[in-house]
């Protein structure tokens, strides 16, 4: 069941589950309507993305010129500033702001909770893998005195930081 690389549909199984949970017993959905719901889902992602990008581009323009942050005014002279981005990665904070712009403010609280849960999960994984790495090191360095152990740990942290450049959560 190979998926085409351009498949923009979200999995039917997930959509079906959401429909099942949202609707009361006894209410069904026509085939046409089900398809439309799936399309609406993809459109929502594209729509949210366009807000994310719009804010991001504006942010870049304003900050690259060192202007005070202004969400509402678009200073025409901002176009004259260099487009060097201080930040290249869209982050979770951008999503929160986009939701506000889209008038989905009531989503913000649950989204923050989801973000916290995700961060905790990631932190746990990171600590677990660091722990494993430490244990391995202890075994291999058992014969040597541990004078370089601290330095190694620092190096590991830096390397991890570089490797996870794309994955990094930028704190807001």
């Amino acid at each position, binding site marked *: 069941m190979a998926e*085409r690389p*351009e*498949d*923009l*549909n*979200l*999995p*039917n199984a*997930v959509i*079906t*589950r*959401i*429909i*099942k*949970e949202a*609707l*009361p017993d*006894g*209410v*069904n*959905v*026509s085939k046409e*309507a*089900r398809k*439309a*719901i799936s*399309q*609406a*889902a*993809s*459109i*929502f*992602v*594209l*729509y*949210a*993305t*366009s807000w994310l*990008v719009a804010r991001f581009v504006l942010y870049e323009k304003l900050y690259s010129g060192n202007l005070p942050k202004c969400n509402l005014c678009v200073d025409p002279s901002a176009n004259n500033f260099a487009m060097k981005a201080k930040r*290249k*990665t*869209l*982050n*979770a904070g*951008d*999503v*929160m702001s986009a*939701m506000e712009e889209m*008038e*989905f403010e009531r*989503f913000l609280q*649950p*989204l923050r909770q*989801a*973000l916290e849960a*995700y*961060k905790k999960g990631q932190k746990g994984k990171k600590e677990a893998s660091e722990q494993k790495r430490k244990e391995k090191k202890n075994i291999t360095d058992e014969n040597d005195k541990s004078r370089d152990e601290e330095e190694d740990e620092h190096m590991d942290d830096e390397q991890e930081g570089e490797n996870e450049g*794309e*994955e990094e*959560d930028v704190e807001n």
Partner: protein
Amino acid sequence: MPGQKRKYNVRFPPGRIKKIMQKDTEVGRIASAVPIIISKALEMFLRSFLTMTCKITQSRNSRVMSINHMKQCIHSEKLFDFLKDLADQASTASTSECKCQSHFYSIICENAQVPGKKMKADTVPL
């Protein structure tokens, strides 16, 4: 005792969400948390949309949610303005005649039109 998993996994695959986002050519790098948050927002959006549409379905004493109920919901809520093209085009037999004002639906249309692509039959029973 470890926390129980949700009975239904309603999280959308982050990779797929990222692919959809990257259809927007302005998008560069995306932090890993972003598709997770979008997935959650999407879930909440769909729930709202379904709940509001269901009210219309029930108000018409129907047990089957139809495209018309969805159309009515979209046109009655400013929040769903971005779905107007979907509402207007959804009942046309062929998606090739897509006269869209916003380009989101046209992106979805393009995907559906590609020759040789066999659409999965939507036969999963509710």
